[in-house]
């Protein structure tokens, strides 16, 4: 069995009496391409927020590369190799595309707390950020303010910032949400061309994208794992079909 980049053990979270994550045992091997799907309100984003530390679990454990990070603050988890994108763009709107990525790369290089030397003197950081933009075909927009970009391009910046962290675990929260069909292909290309040692967990409603990218799929319903399997198994699973066809699932 391959080493797990990310693992959760009996992860639970309740908001008052409402359980939003129920006993989630999840394992993301190194280099995995894994999709997390489920109907609206199934707790997919909650799961990501638990893993990244934006939410604290009520019980259970989270392991990154085998180390327990359950009580670690969000920034500590980033240092341990976790990167994410947001379902709704969370960008630095009044900064340029390059500056958006620079902030992430600077944090990873550990230079972002430096008050004395000018940021412009960090050529290695700047070179790396620009190379990343070139890789994602964003170089032409490097000097534009993020808020001036079309939404589809902004989604790419979301991914670029996360990649600037050189994560070992990349969590993509609906990367294609709000993107025109024509531009979805670009995002798909990027995901398919990610370095093979990054473990990718993708939340997505676009099933074409899910089935093209994912090697494994986990279906989340009402905060609990309904089933996990290969795309073929998931496609054939009756319970999954029930959930997605909107029938009552007493499961």
């Amino acid at each position, binding site marked *: 069995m391959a080493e797990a980049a990310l693992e959760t053990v009996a992860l639970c979270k309740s908001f008052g009496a409402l359980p939003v994550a129920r006993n989630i045992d999840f394992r993301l091997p190194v280099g995995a391409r894994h999709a997390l799907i489920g109907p609206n309100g199934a707790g997919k984003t909650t799961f990501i927020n638990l893993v*990244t530390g*934006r939410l604290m679990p009520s019980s259970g454990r989270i392991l990154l590369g085998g180390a327990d990070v359950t009580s670690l603050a*969000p*920034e*500590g*988890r*980033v*240092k341990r190799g976790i*990167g*994410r994108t*947001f379902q709704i763009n*969370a*960008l*630095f*709107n*009044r*900064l*340029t*595309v*390059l*500056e958006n990525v*620079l*902030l*992430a790369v*600077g*944090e*990873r290089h550990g*230079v*972002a*707390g*430096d*008050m*004395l*030397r*000018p*940021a*412009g*003197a*960090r*050529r*290695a*950081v*700047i*070179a*790396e950020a*620009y*190379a990343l933009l070139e890789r994602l075909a964003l*170089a032409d927009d*490097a*000097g*534009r303010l993020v808020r001036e970009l079309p939404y589809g391009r902004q989604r790419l910046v979301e991914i670029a*910032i*996360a990649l*600037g*962290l050189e994560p070992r675990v990349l969590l993509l929260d609906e990367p294609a949400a709000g993107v025109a069909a024509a531009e979805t292909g670009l995002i798909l290309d990027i995901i398919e061309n990610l370095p093979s040692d990054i473990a990718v967990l993708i939340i997505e409603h676009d099933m074409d994208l899910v089935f093209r990218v994912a090697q494994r799929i986990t279906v989340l319903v009402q905060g609990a794992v309904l089933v996990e399997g290969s795309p073929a198994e998931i496609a054939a699973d009756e319970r999954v079909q029930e959930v997605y066809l909107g029938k009552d699932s007493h499961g």
Partner: protein
Amino acid sequence: MTAAARLPQPPAVRAVLTRHRLRPIEALPWVCAIAVYYAFPDYLALGGQILVMTLFVLSLDLVLGYAGIVTLGHAAFFGTGAYVAGILAVRGWAEPLSGLVAAGAAAGIVGFLTGLVVLRTRGLTLLMVTLVVTQMLQEAANKLGWLTGGADGLQGITIPPVLGLFRFDMFGRTAYLYGLAALFIGWVVARTIVHSPFGRSLTGIRENVTRMQAIGSPVFRRKLAVYVVSAALAGIAGAVLTQTTQFVGLQVLGFEMSAVVIIMLILGGIGRLYGAFIGAPLYMIAQDQLAKDDPANWLFWIGLFLLLVVLFARGGVLGLADRILPRLRKGGDGG
């Protein structure tokens, strides 16, 4: 992974590489300040106060303009510095330069202690907490009459010559140059910070806290750090005021002080480093002129002026200049 040697330089990259370099226009405030010294010897008292307020506004720009911490209590630090310098002088430690350092340090410590609480809040809560902290300090200064002089203010401050050489004269010449030197040092500090990776990360915090956390930035620590630096600079501004006017009153800790400094920053332009150098002189000269011409209603005119700026010149005078200058250069086809 990527060789630093291979760095293509399209405009976006060049902008980042060269942003911190000094441009000729940045000499303008200093040229003006020195020109004023020679051209308006009768106005140096006002000029000195303008320099003090410029430093105060500059300190606010670091927290409000860059880090996006909207505070209504920046007078807490200005006032702390002012009182510390005054009390030290009255109690026998009158040497001005060490007094400035002590006042800055004291204000920085107050910034650190209050920041621990204040910076965990945001929005309206932050506004209220910063406001309350300042009011409490003012009330403390009011009650501790034996130390601060209470409502009468602290009197009997005498400051020996700066470096043993430059006596504070009745025309305010030394005071003006002293204030100018303090402002210059404050500007060097602020400018260095703004262009540093730390300063860039502050703008990230201003633009999107959630994302900053998601890229692993210790947001609270960064905010606290800039809060302390800003508090120290504000404290130094307050101390200069005390030392050059040889008096401290409760108004240095007043709500009006916190409000006026924000107005000056908005007038000049927020988050631009030089907003302070426009806003403070503009406000204070307008106040001086209007108070002379129309003593009953000058506040109304200031208000009207501010309203116009907010409605028609978002980004203050500097924001307006940003929009107009390119058009002039391109002969009107810009936009």
